[in-house]
């Protein structure tokens, strides 16, 4: 797949030198990224590398200690999560986080309440996930993990995001279910979305991504197109094994 990086003008989402602390712990250390329109930008890394923290900070659920988040040229660093969502940065959170006492349809209706104008409607989500419409009156607490994940994606889509943030879609799901969900991605992208995703399952991320960034202990250790990086490089960046492959030292230089 060809990356649309070159000649595509300004990035839709730009993160500059983002540092985030969880109490004393520095979860992210001066991480930067540029996401261009139409990309599938994958952030990979081991447990605790700071991937989810990065995504949650972009969505507004954490406040960074330092750094800037620019969306479509606007500074969003201080904006509340709901303001970012209505502006077009919508996240599918880790663990699905559906409204458990609400039905499938009500979950989608909540997602659509403050939606931007755009191609996605509740009907269109029902078309994407064929099983959903006839079970729309069911409470989401009764659904399987894969079904819940689909509803969570649907709830994000009906808000008509420009940037869709996907946090660990594969978590707790059977591999076949994960594949089925990722198989939906081209149909979603066809409506003009940009996707920024976090994934522990590296092979899955490499299959769908047009651009890749690897985090290790809050630092960027590798960045590039999947076709430009070797499996050895990815492995080294993921585990921090080879001191030559990463672009930066993995040792902390500051206290």
């Amino acid at each position, binding site marked *: 797949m060809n990356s649309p990086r070159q000649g595509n003008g300004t990035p839709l989402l730009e993160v500059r030198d983002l540092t985030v602390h969880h109490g004393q712990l520095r979860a992210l250390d001066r991480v930067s990224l540029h996401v261009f329109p139409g990309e599938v930008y994958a952030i990979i890394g081991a447990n605790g590398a700071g991937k989810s923290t990065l995504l949650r900070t972009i969505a507004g*659920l954490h406040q960074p200690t330092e750094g800037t988040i620019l969306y479509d040229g606007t500074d969003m660093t201080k904006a509340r*999560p709901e303001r970012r969502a209505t502006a077009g940065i*919508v996240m599918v959170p880790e663990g699905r*986080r559906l409204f458990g*006492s609400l039905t499938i349809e009500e979950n989608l*209706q909540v997602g659509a*309440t*403050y939606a931007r104008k755009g191609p996605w409607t509740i009907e269109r989500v029902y078309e994407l996930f064929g099983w959903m419409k006839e079970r729309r009156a069911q409470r989401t607490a009764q659904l399987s993990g894969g079904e819940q994940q689909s509803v969570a994606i649907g709830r994000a889509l009906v808000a008509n995001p420009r940037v869709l943030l996907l946090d660990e879609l594969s978590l707790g799901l059977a591999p076949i279910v994960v594949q089925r969900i990722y198989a939906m991605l081209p149909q979603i992208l066809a409506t003009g979305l940009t996707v920024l995703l976090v994934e522990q399952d590296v092979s899955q991320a490499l299959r769908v991504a047009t651009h890749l960034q690897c985090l290790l202990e809050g630092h960027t250790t590798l960045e590039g197109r999947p076709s430009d990086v070797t499996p050895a490089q990815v492995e080294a960046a993921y585990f921090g094994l080879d001191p030559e492959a990463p672009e930066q030292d993995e040792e902390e230089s500051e206290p």
Partner: protein
Amino acid sequence: MAWVNAIIQGILTGGLYALFACGLSLMFGVMKVVNLAHGDLAILGGYIALGVIAVTHVPVLWSVVIVVPIMAALGYVMQRTMIQASLDRSVLTTLLVTFGLSVVIENGLLQFVNADSHSLGVGNSIITKSFSIGSQIQIAYLLVLIFAVAVAVLLGLQYFLSSSRYGRLIRAVADDREAAQLSGVDYRHVFGIAAAIAFGTVALAGIAYGMYSQFAPTTGTDTILLFAFAAVVIGGLGSLWGTLLGGVVLGVAQQIGAQINISYEVLAGYLVLLAVLVFRPQGLTARKAES
């Protein structure tokens, strides 16, 4: 027959208790705020009604149209400012803040009104009368009206929560505040709406109480708050119909206690509360039965 009368009176009084309790239950269910000022807010509603009637000379029932919106607006503003600020710190802080609010309202009323008891006179209309069934059962039209209003309010609230856009948002925010934010929902605004409903219903309950009985600045904490808590706990938290059931059980227990000996009235209610806490701490209705 006297026992039948006690049960009927108890059921009807239970409607009033449910009206007190539904706002308390809603605020706890949606924002996990235990509003210790709830009883004082009811009394405040009663005093505002007194003031409105004194100034405009409207009949008591019409004062509802003015007082309920005032209290609802107050609820929205209080939630968006003071209560939200305490929620942002911790759930424990909300206890302190609403307790403080309770003290302020009670002493404010003592200061600016006085410690005398008041009631909202309904004048010489049909609702001051009562009708009899047989020789022993006398039912006041006023109690029937209050019970009907309580059921109507609960039905309306149920319909609002299950079918309206804001009702859906209230349930979503109660389920998962953060996930609601990710869908673009400003949960603070939704909290404000829930508080407006709670304050509106408790003002209505305060006016009903003022028509049914007498109130003084201290009635809020020493009677209403406790009865409302008892109704919520007996019925089961977070369930509107459980609240009605809780109110009715409390009312019936009190009337039966009073039938045995008039001094047992309040005690009997709390004995039932204690029994529920011991044997069925989740309340009579199952947890999370309805929104």
